């Protein structure tokens, strides 16, 4: 995927060819023609690219043998060699150009180097061993060094050529940005990687209002995992930048000059400056045109020699062993190998492992190696919410293979060193995450010994200011479990980051006598479901990554147990505000249908209170025929289930059912399922009240609500109880004098008859109590706990107290439920049938096997 096509050199082309003809005609060596004969064995070295790698290579050569070459350097930029990575601080106003110069004019003069600046090389003639510049200047070489770096990648959208659209690669780009920033206004940076964020930072400091548009869901996704990416985004937003992730640029708009960026979702972001920082491509056009072997970069061997033995290449433009690099550290190693091979004892380059830091003042980010883990990899995670720190070290077979650090990067160098050396870290495994000082602190690699060695006034719990002495005292006074310690001296009772320390103190003091604490939400956390629910509200935690950070999750992105639970808890705590995380939902809730054993889905439309009519029945019959559904069945929940629908056909099926007025039955959800009714007073000779009508009202009130587990309601018209109301989560049994309300029944794995809650006299009271009960269950129960086990745990007396005795509390619960329902009663099927989340139902691609073969 070559971004920059070879530009045919203009003026230089003719002179180039004619010169070549000359040489062939006269048979004179190339360097004789330029400026005089060779002196002794002094050879002619020409360098293309006056950048970081080209000049470093020259320095390395000079250091080994200053007399070996007569050197000419061509540079496209009209400058001496400067430190490209410092363009970011230059843009931010932290450095001046003079401060970032690496080699000043005196260096070139002192070393007899001829610098041709501002005149790029346009062509290489390998047969004649000459290069020709754009202005027509031709120079012969014995050895040629290509160090052309990279070209910024420009995404091929309309408007990319408008004035005001710049890349971020060299001084000219910085000058353009500074000129634009001088006028203030809005800037858009396309690309939320290292370069883009440094540009955004600089422009923010220069007073512009910056929006970063990033295609991927998290910032710097190649260097950071989701957790660190989230911390970074939060921090940048706090500094006033707008960060749009998952945003795809459609077009750059403007009349004669850039005015804004239009996204594929239709939004337009105004901008007087657009910086494209989406990536770089090795600059290989010259080499390719000269017929050198070029893959992703100019291909070189371990001594930086290209497919032509007279030509070397170094820097970002090369490909070595299948790798290309975009950072400076590898350049130093390449240049060393190059000089060794050229003028001293060949040593060879073996590829580089790289690490990254972000140069944004006040934000410390470090990343190295393979942090995505993979098979056999083990994550060690440390989160310190109070300090905004996230650290993750990835081990494989007791060796560090990757690290991501946010907020505290002091140990980055140490981890990187361990990684490069491939050292066995088994002896310090338990403490490695605490950093070098701790792990190597006087042979205290045993974490228990390290804790034992702490003085009595050492602070254990920062949140509550509890010293080691106090924790030990409360353990000695009888607190034999983590919970007991939390209850007596408050240590580890707030943010929980010192839980590990407290556990070690317990183990030290009591040995095997430590009592196991209550069950935690899953193995990713030391918190219980109740703790998590409480802290979400108390600390106003608003997203899954935030909960994980603030509550010290020990895995980078949780597991299939905690993610759905957190998603539900957040949804329940922040109705209307929290954005559901689809990837944290079980497949049925993501696709709004029930997955079957063969991978197809079943579809159950809602039939309010078990009632239906010809129109609905016809629509269902039509769907069964149209999509060849192999089975349609009356369910145990008084409605119809259509089986065997393919994922791709779901939206069309729903559109047809919607057209007949039907909505999702949520037969797949941790949500309200069915409201079963009997015929009641309208027809039945024993019926006391309109159980059917009340059932319909209850279903209209409560459908669409997400719950800890599924929830079923039934209304029976008399104590004969034909709707089986006394094995439902909420059951209503009508009697002459009113309505008996029952809760916590279950007809499933373990049958449980309901507990009687109370008796009310009107339909409205029955509905209000139903809403209050649902809300209490939603706010209190653990995820995947149905009402039956929940009530067994908290006791029916507690439920009665909250709902029957406390009238004000009940009304508040009812109000909270109805408020939450005002956001959740949208039919998910209609949204999907209308095109939302289309990708959930479509293949990424589809092709026939013959196409695969044809490609051969």
């Amino acid at each position, binding site marked *: *995927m070559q971004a920059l096509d070879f530009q045919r050199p203009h003026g230089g082309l003719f002179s180039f060819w004619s010169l070549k003809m000359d040489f062939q005609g006269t048979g004179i060596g190339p360097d004789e023609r330029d400026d005089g004969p060779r002196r002794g064995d002094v050879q002619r070295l020409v360098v293309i690219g006056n950048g970081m790698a080209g000049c470093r290579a020259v320095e390395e050569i000079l250091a080994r043998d200053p007399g070996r070459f007569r050197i000419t350097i061509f540079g496209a930029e009209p400058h001496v060699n400067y430190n490209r990575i410092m363009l970011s601080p230059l843009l931010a106003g932290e450095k001046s150009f003079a401060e970032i110069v690496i080699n000043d004019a005196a260096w070139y003069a002192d070393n007899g180097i001829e610098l041709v600046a501002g005149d790029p090389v346009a062509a290489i003639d390998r047969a004649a061993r000459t290069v020709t510049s754009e202005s027509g200047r031709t120079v012969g070489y014995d050895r040629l060094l290509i160090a052309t770096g990279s070209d910024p*990648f420009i995404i091929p959208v309309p408007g990319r050529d408008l004035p005001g659209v710049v890349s971020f690669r060299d001084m000219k780009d910085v000058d353009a940005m500074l000129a634009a920033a001088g006028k203030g206004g809005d800037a858009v940076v396309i690309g939320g990687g290292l370069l883009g964020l440094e540009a955004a930072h600089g422009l923010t400091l220069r007073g512009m209002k910056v929006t970063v548009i990033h*295609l*991927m*869901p*998290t910032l710097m*996704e*190649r260097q950071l*995992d*989701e*957790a660190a990416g989230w911390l970074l985004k939060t921090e940048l937003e706090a500094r006033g930048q707008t960060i749009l992730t*998952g945003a*795809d640029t459609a077009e750059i708009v403007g009349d004669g000059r850039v005015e804004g960026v239009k996204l594929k979702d239709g939004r337009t972001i105004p901008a007087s400056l657009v910086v494209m920082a989406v*990536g770089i*491509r090795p600059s290989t056009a010259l080499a390719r045109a000269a017929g050198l072997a070029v893959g992703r970069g100019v291909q070189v061997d371990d001594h930086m020699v290209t497919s032509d033995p007279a030509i070397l290449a170094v820097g970002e433009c090369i490909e070595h062993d299948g790798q290309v690099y975009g950072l400076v550290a590898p350049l130093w190693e390449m240049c060393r190998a190059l000089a060794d091979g050229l003028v001293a004892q060949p040593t060879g380059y073996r590829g580089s492992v790289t690490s990254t830091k972000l140069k944004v003042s006040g934000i410390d980010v470090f990343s190295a190696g393979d*942090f*995505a*883990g*993979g*098979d056999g*990899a083990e*994550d060690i995670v440390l989160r310190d919410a109070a300090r905004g720190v996230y650290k993750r070290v990835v081990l494989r077979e007791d060796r560090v293979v990757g690290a991501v650090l946010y907020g505290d990067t002091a140990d980055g160098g140490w981890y990187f060193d361990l990684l490069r050396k491939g050292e066995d870290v088994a002896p310090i495994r338990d403490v490695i995450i605490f950093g070098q000082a701790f792990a190597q602190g006087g042979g205290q690699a045993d974490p228990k010994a390290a804790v034992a060695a702490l003085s009595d006034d050492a602070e254990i719990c920062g949140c509550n200011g509890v010293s080691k002495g106090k924790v030990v005292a409360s353990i000695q006074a009888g607190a034999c479990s983590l919970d007991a310690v939390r209850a007596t001296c408050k240590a580890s009772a707030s943010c929980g980051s010192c839980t590990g320390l407290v556990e070690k103190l317990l183990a030290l003091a009591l040995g095997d006598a430590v009592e196991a604490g209550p069950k935690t939400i899953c193995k990713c956390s030391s918190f219980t479901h109740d703790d998590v629910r409480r802290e979400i509200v108390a600390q106003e935690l608003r997203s899954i990554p935030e909960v994980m950070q603030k509550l010290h999750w020990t*895995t*980078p*992105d*949780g*597991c*299939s147990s905690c*993610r*759905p639970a957190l998603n539900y808890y957040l949804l329940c705590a922040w109705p209307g505000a929290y954005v559901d995380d*689809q*990837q*944290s*939902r*079980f*497949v*049925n809730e*993501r*696709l709004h249908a029930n*997955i079957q*054993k*063969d*991978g197809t889905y079943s579809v159950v439309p809602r039939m309010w209170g078990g009632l239906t009519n010809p129109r609905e029945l016809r629509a269902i019959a039509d769907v069964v025929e149209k999509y060849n559904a192999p089975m349609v069945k009356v369910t145990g929940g008084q409605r119809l289930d259509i089986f065997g629908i393919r994922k791709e056909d779901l939206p069309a099926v729903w559109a047809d059912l919607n057209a007949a007025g039907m909505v999702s039955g949520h037969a797949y959800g941790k949500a309200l399922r069915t409201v079963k009714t009997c015929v009641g007073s309208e027809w039945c000779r024993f019926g006391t009240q309109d159980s059917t009508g009340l059932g319909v009202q209850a279903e209209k009130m409560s459908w669409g609500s997400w719950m800890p587990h599924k929830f079923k309601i039934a209304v029976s018209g008399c104590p004969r109880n034909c709707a089986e109301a006394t094995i439902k989560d909420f059951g209503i049994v009508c009697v002459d004098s009113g309505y008996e309300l029952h809760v916590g029944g279950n007809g499933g794995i373990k049958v449980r008859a309901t507990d009687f809650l109370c008796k009310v006299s009107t339909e409205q009271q029955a509905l209000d109590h139903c809403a209050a009960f649902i809300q209490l269950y939603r706010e209190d129960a653990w995820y995947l706990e149905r009402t039956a086990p929940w009530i067994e745990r908290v006791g029916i007396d507690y439920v009665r107290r909250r709902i029957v005795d406390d009238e004000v509390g009940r009304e508040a619960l009812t109000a909270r439920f109805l408020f939450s329902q005002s956001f959740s009663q949208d039919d998910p099927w209609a949204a999907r049938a209308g095109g939302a989340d289309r*990708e959930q139902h479509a*293949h*990424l*691609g*589809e*092709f*026939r*096997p013959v*196409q*695969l*073969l*044809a*490609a*051969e």
Partner: protein
Amino acid sequence: MMMTGDWIDVGALGEIPLRGARTIKMGAGGEEIAIFHTSGGKVYALVNRCPHKQGPLSQGIVHGDAVACPLHNWRISLATGEALGEDEGCVPTIPVRVDAGRVLISRIAMLTTLAAA
């Protein structure tokens, strides 16, 4: 879809949700390939068929470098295709790489997978 040489361009990485997967369909009624995108930014391709009872792995919950099968919750390693923990079984993996935001999968491996199916 672009097909040149040994790698087949199947789409943009941005089209695969983070901690999610998308499928590639190979012919009518043919085998599906699931392409996963993890929170660490890694991309993996596996045959979309759980070693237990053929559950569509692409629909499972992705965490770390594993997916929990939607049918009976086996955990499958995305890197090796092997069942993790107590369970035993393995699903074929397919070499995949990302270049300039495009997802490329190995043509040879796809052909082999097809032949084996």
